[in-house]
């Protein structure tokens, strides 16, 4: 198990730009099926073999149109689950309570899940660990169905909203439940996305959990953009973390950096095993991933998956 060295990120498709809402809206205008297929084709030509994405409303609308294509099927998949936005729209104006209820409600889709939740809300409140497992089952069933099967799903990451909330509130054991269940039940690489990497590393150490079988997706760039509490502390955490793999995101600092400068920095961070970069335009994909070719061909730390 491991993670591909180069991952294509779905932020341009999902309408996410960590540095600019205007840019995210502008890029959304180019999100058409032909452009997406061209994106996959170009990225594949640049040696990219992994795709990481959230199962948000827009992605769910697009996947039926692209999942059978040769372009999409050439990629290993690393979804982030669950996606709150999907449940938020079902929850109407009830927000947190509604989201939880919608999520629990959705669990009855699968036969096994239904059986697990026969006790309904009281069952969930008494057995949060079972609820987490049932939620993973339901979300992964969605992933497998929408992405054309399970064989190309190589790893699963928990989105930063859940990871960072759990870390802040001292619920590291729930994170361990997530990664443990994904590994044991599905034999997949299990990962956590965070914007507070040192907190994750220190919380795991304090609770005496090991990160040796946990992949982490977190910002790394020479500007320290979204690296909390600081670039220096994130780099120090990288040295002591000993994760299964570290997938760097925000490597271009939200578009503030030329790809060459970003690649040079990433090469200097020996604990970084993969990078995930979102780009939609072929020229941008080529320029960006070509800059990371030497990173892609270096042996890298353990945790790198080779095609």
């Amino acid at each position, binding site marked *: 198990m491991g993670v591909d060295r180069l991952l294509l990120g779905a932020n341009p498709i999902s309408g996410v730009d960590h540095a*600019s809402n205007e840019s995210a809206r502008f890029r959304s*205008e180019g999100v058409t099926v032909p452009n997406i297929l061209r994106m996959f084709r170009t990225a594949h030509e640049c040696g990219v073999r992994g795709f990481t994405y959230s199962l948000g409303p827009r992605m769910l609308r697009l996947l039926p149109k692209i999942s059978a294509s040769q372009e999409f099927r050439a990629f290993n998949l690393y979804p982030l689950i669950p996606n709150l936005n999907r449940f938020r729209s079902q929850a109407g104006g009830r927000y947190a*309570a509604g989201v939880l209820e919608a999520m629990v409600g959705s669990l009855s889709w699968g036969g096994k899940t239904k059986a697990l939740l026969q006790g309904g809300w009281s069952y969930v409140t008494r057995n949060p660990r079972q609820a987490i497992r049932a939620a993973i089952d339901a979300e992964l069933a969605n992933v497998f169905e929408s992405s054309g099967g399970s064989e190309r799903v190589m790893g699963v990451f928990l989105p930063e909203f859940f990871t960072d909330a759990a870390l802040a509130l001292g619920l590291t054991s729930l994170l361990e439940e997530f990664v443990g269940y994904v590994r044991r039940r599905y034999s997949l690489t299990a990962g956590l996305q965070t914007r*507070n990497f040192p907190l994750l590393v220190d919380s795991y150490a304090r609770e005496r959990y090991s990160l040796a079988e946990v992949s982490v997706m977190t910002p790394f760039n020479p500007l320290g953009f979204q690296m909390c509490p600081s670039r220096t502390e994130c780099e120090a955490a990288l040295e002591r973390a000993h994760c299964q793999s570290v997938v760097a995101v925000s490597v271009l600092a939200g578009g503030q950096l030329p790809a060459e400068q970003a690649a040079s920095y990433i090469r200097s961070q020996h604990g970084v095993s993969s990078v995930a970069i979102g780009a939609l335009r072929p020229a941008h994909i080529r320029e960006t991933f070509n800059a990371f070719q030497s990173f892609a061909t270096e042996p890298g730390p353990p945790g790198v998956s080779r095609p």
Partner: protein
Amino acid sequence: MNVSDRTIRIGIVGMGAMGLIHAVIFSQLPGSTLVGVADTNKRLVSLARGVAKKLPLFETLDQLVDEGRPDAVVVCTPADTHASVVEAAHRKHVLKGIFVEKPLANTHQDASRIAGLAGSGSLVTLVGFQKRSIPSVVQARRWIADGLLGEPRFFRSHWLAGHVDRPATGWKHDPSSGGALLEFGIHLVDLLEWMFGPPKHVKASAARLHSERVEDFAAATLEYASGLVGVIETGWSARNYNPSGLAIEVHGTKASLTVSEDRAVLYPDSRAERDSPAEPVVLNSASAWGSLPFLFANPENVLFDRSFTDHLGGRGGSAPDFEFAAGVSLTVDRIRRAFEQSGGM
């Protein structure tokens, strides 16, 4: 021990989306600690107890204050309960600060009553107008305050989002507590009052697209005693605004500016320097956040919450207090009345 000399104890009232965000941030901000969360939804509290065994959870504000002993509470309940929750919190007489998520109250009448309570003592108050913490917005306001625009003459502004794409229920879709103006437009009203003060005259119209009981779009023209005239547009069913977008442009006698969440740009008047026209001055928010101790939700949420603890700890920080927010509520009320009278919906 004075509150400024020790860690500030924060309690959260309301376990909705904003309650969770504040709970997470205050639990990690240096100088503050989370002492408990209260929610009257017993099912939600029961679920949270099952998941977060170490987190003190309460079913009432009284329990939170009596047992959690917070220095301050953050009120994140539905907007139509803000007034009663703040009054109940104020009656406890032990709190040094109250932070209310926006709006302070649904009506100016309720908002000014709450502001009156707070104004009678040394209570630190804050209302959740987090957009003030965005670097580009801070810079734009500074250019205006420093007189770089000369005399502001007219502005255009909008905050549009694509969040509501079908009829919905809940308090944000109830006429007494919801609508696009209270959800998004109120942030814009706050920023404009922060920049220019309250308007003298208000005209407005509104429209519906999906909602059955509240406005999906509102537009208002504001006129100020100084002669400044401006336009506000706000809506939550603009399909091309995912993510949402905030923009203000101001034109003055010496210069113009544009500001969004991404950047602020100052366009100096180049007529005086024909040989070497002055270049626009640009500040990008992405490069100006500075170092954050912890990141959750948006960076402005973290900075704004930090301003509350700074204020409580006597470390300065200007912020929209209850009195200011009551003024914002007055303008929002005037806009609502104007579009209701216009018969546009």
